[in-house]
């Protein structure tokens, strides 16, 4: 079917004013884009906030020493000698006096280096006798992981490996539990390093982490001092070529760890992390592990969020008694996070108001342009009526035109909304736009265009042709 002349007239009148038509389409597009992405942002933030509020993290009370209360590892040189307060796994005992605590655990950030590190005094094959001797020393095993480095007496960090034989106090940074034969049989891991947590068993319960193979740590693992390692699901797949990790041994710094468990996939950052037991160091002696204990934070989970503050007070009582008033820092992450989320909410409200204003401005402008466009075409419409167009036919052709502009605007607006949502997604790390919201946005904008154009179209289509023709 060939295009009819009245449709031709409509198409050419749109084409004849390209700037105006593009402005109309852009006006609608920006209005839709702004509103849809504004709502997408709100939707995301709300669902993110929901997720955060229901996460384990929000039920925590965190206990740390003054120096590490901000949760960051601080340079060892900044720890003054007289303030040698170190919290340990044993301090989880505070929970005994607080029935509201559901879980209590240690969760310390650390970092593990995997692989065949060259052992001191040995060649690359690890067949040196000096490593042989250390096997006998299994009980005085040294773990060197994370950011902790041995200090000398003045508190300065030793960045270079300490030469020479073990000193009298048993401090031996080159200590290893690795047997030379074992070393040669070890597979080279595919991953050089991983973020890790030093944890106690209840950590896994608190975060609902389960092992798919092997098991999570037990109280026994904390006490028994066997070097065991638990891997997140993704990390486990990455480390070995055949993706089977459970039961294997892996060198971590100078020690050999057995992978005693692999966690089920959670879809969180835990999937890429490793877990080693937070053991109780012998603080009285010169156990090298006292270094590991620096920065230990204890975490207490309170199920009933309304009890957080009173539980905090109870826990404070315990630590004040134990270590003296004010020496231990106790914080509630939820309270701090809520302040941040409050600020975010205010920002989002502003953004939402801006995007709705964008839509309003678009509505006003689009209506204006459309009305003036129709006014200009009054005469044409009057002639069309004189030539035999009914009121309905005029209305339909005006609506087609509006529909065309509306659809172009909605499509462009959707593209804008998707792009903006992608940016939001990338910058906020949220789950991105919601298809439902997009569909809703397009639908709303379609209705909006129909209403905005429909009212003037309806009025102008009713005009008597004689009236229209009088316009010169």
């Amino acid at each position, binding site marked *: 079917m060939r295009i009819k*002349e009245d449709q031709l007239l409509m198409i050419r009148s749109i084409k004849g004013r390209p700037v105006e038509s593009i402005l109309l389409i852009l006006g609608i597009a920006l209005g839709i884009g702004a509103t849809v992405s504004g709502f997408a942002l709100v939707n995301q933030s709300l669902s993110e906030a929901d997720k955060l509020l229901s996460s384990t993290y929000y039920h925590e009370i965190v206990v740390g020493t003054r120096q590490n209360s901000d949760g960051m590892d601080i340079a060892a040189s900044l720890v003054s000698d007289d303030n040698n307060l170190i919290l340990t796994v044993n301090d989880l005992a505070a929970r005994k006096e607080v029935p509201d605590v559901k879980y209590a655990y240690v969760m310390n950030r650390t970092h593990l280096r995997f692989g065949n590190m060259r052992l001191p005094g040995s060649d690359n094959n690890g067949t040196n006798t000096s490593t042989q001797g250390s096997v006998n020393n299994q009980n005085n095993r040294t773990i060197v992981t994370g950011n902790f480095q041995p200090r000398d007496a003045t508190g300065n960090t030793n960045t270079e490996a300490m030469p020479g034989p073990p000193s009298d106090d048993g401090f031996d940074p080159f200590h290893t539990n690795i047997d030379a034969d074992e070393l040669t049989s070890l597979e080279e891991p595919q991953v050089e390093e991983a973020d890790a947590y030093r944890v106690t068993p209840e950590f896994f319960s608190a975060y609902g982490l389960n092992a798919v193979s092997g098991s999570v740590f037990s109280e026994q693992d904390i006490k028994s001092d066997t070097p065991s390692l638990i891997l997140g699901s993704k990390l486990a797949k990455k480390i070995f070529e055949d993706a089977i990790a459970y039961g294997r041994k892996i060198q971590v710094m100078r020690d050999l760890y057995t992978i005693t468990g692999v966690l089920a996939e959670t879809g969180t950052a835990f999937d890429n992390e490793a877990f080693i037991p937070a053991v109780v160091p012998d603080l009285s002696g010169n156990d090298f592990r006292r270094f590991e204990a620096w920065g230990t934070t204890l975490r207490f989970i309170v199920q009933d969020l309304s009890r957080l503050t009173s539980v905090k007070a109870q826990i404070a009582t315990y630590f004040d008694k134990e270590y003296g008033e004010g020496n231990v820092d106790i914080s509630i992450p939820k309270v701090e996070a809520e302040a941040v989320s409050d600020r975010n909410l205010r920002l989002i409200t502003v953004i939402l108001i801006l995007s709705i204003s964008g839509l309003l401005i678009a509505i006003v402008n689009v209506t204006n342009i459309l009305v003036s466009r129709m006014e200009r075409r009054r005469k044409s419409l009057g002639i069309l009526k004189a030539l*035999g167009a*009914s009121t309905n036919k005029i209305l339909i052709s005006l609506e087609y035109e509006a529909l065309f502009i509306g659809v172009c605007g909605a499509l462009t607006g959707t593209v804008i909304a998707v792009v903006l949502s992608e940016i939001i997604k990338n910058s906020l790390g949220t789950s991105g736009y919601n298809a439902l919201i997009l569909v809703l946005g397009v639908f709303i904008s379609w209705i909006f265009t129909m209403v905005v154009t429909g009212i003037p179209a309806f009025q102008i289509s009713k005009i008597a042709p004689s009236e229209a*023709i009088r316009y010169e």
Partner: protein
Amino acid sequence: MIRLENIEKEFDLGQIKIKALDNINLTINRGDYLAVMGPSGSGKSTFLNILGILDFSTSGQYFLEDYEISSLPDKEQARIRNKHFGFVFQSFNLFSELSAIENVMLPMSYAGVKYNARKKRAGELLDWLGLNDRLYHLPSMLSGGEQQRVAIARALSNDPDLILADEPTGNLPSDKGEEILETLEKLNSNGVTIVMVTHNDAQGDRAHKRIHIKDGKIEWRKVCA
């Protein structure tokens, strides 16, 4: 064909009301050639608009072949304008976005004429009016006389019974006006009814019937030989 009874038209301008037509009684027969004359502002255009169903009287009755026009639905009125009436305006009123032939084809598309048929007829009409080398020109590329001839071709496209012309020669030099007038007379001799508003006494005298409107009333009427 047309019978007007006590037609009145009042324009309501808020504070004042303008009576543009008052007590118009008139019969128009098939094949008539009627000239409508009168001073400016007397109501000639208003009369022609009501006759062409481009506007409605405030009171009185308008019968077209015994149908009371105002009782017909909008769609039917549109169909009558499309199939039975042809309009020729002083200012041509062509669509500037459409070529000459497309302007002529447009009313036929409303009448449901197929593309090829309406294109053929539009070509023939323009050819008859001496515009066969102007088919694809836009109105802006045509002279006033040529534009008015395109407008006449458009008015003729659906083979109307009645042509309503409001000062069709008003914007044209006298020789071009004469051409238009001769064309209308040729159509009338072929049986098309013509109602033409004119200021020109000489033109009016050539019509078979004349009415003279003053202040919305028919002051006098005359049937020529």
